[in-house]
């Protein structure tokens, strides 16, 4: 029977709640939450708009073990207001990163699932995202690696898309999405000709994990499976990117080369063709393993 091996026995990362993702990525039973739901640290801004709050404001932060090493971890709950960052949500993330600077765990894992700034708290949300960015860069500068895992239903957009690229490393699933201006916002502001947000194939080949991996914006491409994300997190923990002139110069050359080489491409399939992928149109249908082999020589970015 052909179906037996194709049965999706994997525990989907995308389908799991933020809490379950954390529990599954970290060593079993090791997670200890800081400001747990029972503390009821909720958004002060939603009541005025007649919107329900969440006891954790959609951000779960704490510490645990990963392969026996002490790490800090945060997860955004994409189902609550699209994982968007408000005052409290952002302060929990920023606070965790600054705690990491002091306590120096083996690393900080950010399980990002967010549309960006929470519009219901617009200005406070924008500042919160900025504070998170600064806190990520500060933690890294102090030598604590920060790793982003992106595979939730909302992807990682707006300011959080910048936050992800401020980290040392990014692991994504094919289903994960990463960008700054998300498909709906792009369609709403620039028109359906610019990007048809209902064209899911277009959306995923523009923002999805495969394209990000090929560009070098994601360091690992993994299956939509909590165990695969856990393995990627373990692997990437040791992979630090220096915050300094040398690394910056190298990154600058890479980004300049991307623009020079691929800047004329308006669609991801053009990028793949120009990057030298054989049969680029096939990429979207390949399973992760096949995909990694198919793009091995064409991939841009660090190994």
């Amino acid at each position, binding site marked *: 029977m052909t179906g037996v091996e194709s049965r999706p026995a994997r525990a989907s990362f995308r389908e799991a709640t933020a809490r379950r993702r954390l529990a599954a990525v970290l060593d079993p039973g090791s997670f200890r*939450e*800081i*400001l747990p739901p029972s*503390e009821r*640290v909720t958004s*002060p*801004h939603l009541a*005025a*708009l*007649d919107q329900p709050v969440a006891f954790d404001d959609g951000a779960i932060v*704490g510490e645990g073990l990963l392969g026996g090493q002490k790490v800090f971890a945060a997860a955004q709950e994409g189902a609550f207001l699209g994982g968007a960052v408000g*005052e409290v949500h952002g*302060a929990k993330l*920023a*606070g965790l990163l*600054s*705690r990491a600077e002091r306590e120096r765990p083996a690393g900080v894992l950010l399980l990002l699932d967010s549309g960006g700034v929470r*519009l*219901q708290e*617009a*200005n*406070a949300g*924008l*500042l919160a*995202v*900025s*504070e998170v*960015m*600064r806190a990520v*860069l*500060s933690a890294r500068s102090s030598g604590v690696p920060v790793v982003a895992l992106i595979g939730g239903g909302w992807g990682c957009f*707006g*300011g959080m898309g*910048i936050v*992800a*690229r*401020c980290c040392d490393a990014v692991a994504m699933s094919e289903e994960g999405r990463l*960008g*700054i*201006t998300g498909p709906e*916002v*792009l369609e709403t502001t620039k028109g359906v000709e610019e*990007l048809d947000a209902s064209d899911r194939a277009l959306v995923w080949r*523009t923002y999805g994990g495969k*394209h990000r991996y090929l*560009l070098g*914006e994601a360091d690992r491409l993994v299956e939509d499976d909590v165990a695969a994300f856990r393995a990627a997190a373990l692997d990437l923990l040791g992979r630090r990117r220096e*915050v300094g*002139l040398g690394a*910056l110069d190298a990154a*600058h050359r890479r*980004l*300049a080369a*991307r*623009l020079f080489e691929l*800047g004329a*491409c*308006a*669609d*991801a399939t053009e990028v793949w063709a120009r990057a030298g992928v054989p049969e680029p149109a096939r990429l979207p249908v390949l399973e992760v393993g096949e995909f990694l082999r198919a793009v091995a020589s064409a991939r841009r970015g660090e190994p």
Partner: protein
Amino acid sequence: MTASEILASLFPAGHSVREEGGLLAGTGGAPGAEVAVLGTALGLEVGVESALALAAGVLDVIRLHPGRPILALLDSRGQRMSRRDEVLGLNGYLAHLAEAVEVARRAGHRVIALVYGEASSGSALALGFMADEVHAVPGARLSVMNLPAMARVTKIPLERLEEASRASPVLAPGLEPYVRLGGVESVWRPPLAEALAAALARPAGPDRRAARGEERGGRLLARPVADRVRGGPAR
């Protein structure tokens, strides 16, 4: 105010700042105490090319002029919204720009941002908000999204948003809300040169915006929540 009016007021002794394609670059100030100037003009929406160019400007200052202060002048409606920018990974270019500013500050460059027009979203995050201090001139407008668009996206009635924005600084675009939230340290009034000199004279420190927001009553939870998380697990 236009970029040239701002520059004239900031650098009465003259400057070499040029505007090209919405990007500002050059130096201002007296010989021996030059300030590197970079930034955006005419509301430039920052795309992949301009983000890279701004980062290149920061890198040059670090490499060629160790310790030289940087003034980031901001008039930008945000990041450029296009499919091509997304295909090429604009978020990564903006993160690179932000990291460049971080490296500059850590290398001992004072970085001051001055919003003299608009500041919004991606470009505000990657350039202006990465500075040691963010200031603005009267009439500056900082925003995420205007209220009618916000009403469409959140499906909250516009009247309700308007009503809520009268009571709280978190919703409406503008300058005053960002001052109250701690996002803008102060409003500079001419002569701007004095305000710049005073800012440059202050020592750099950690990100103080959440504390400012608390002092000014605009963000009462950001500082205490971050501190509680920083402090230790609740037991």
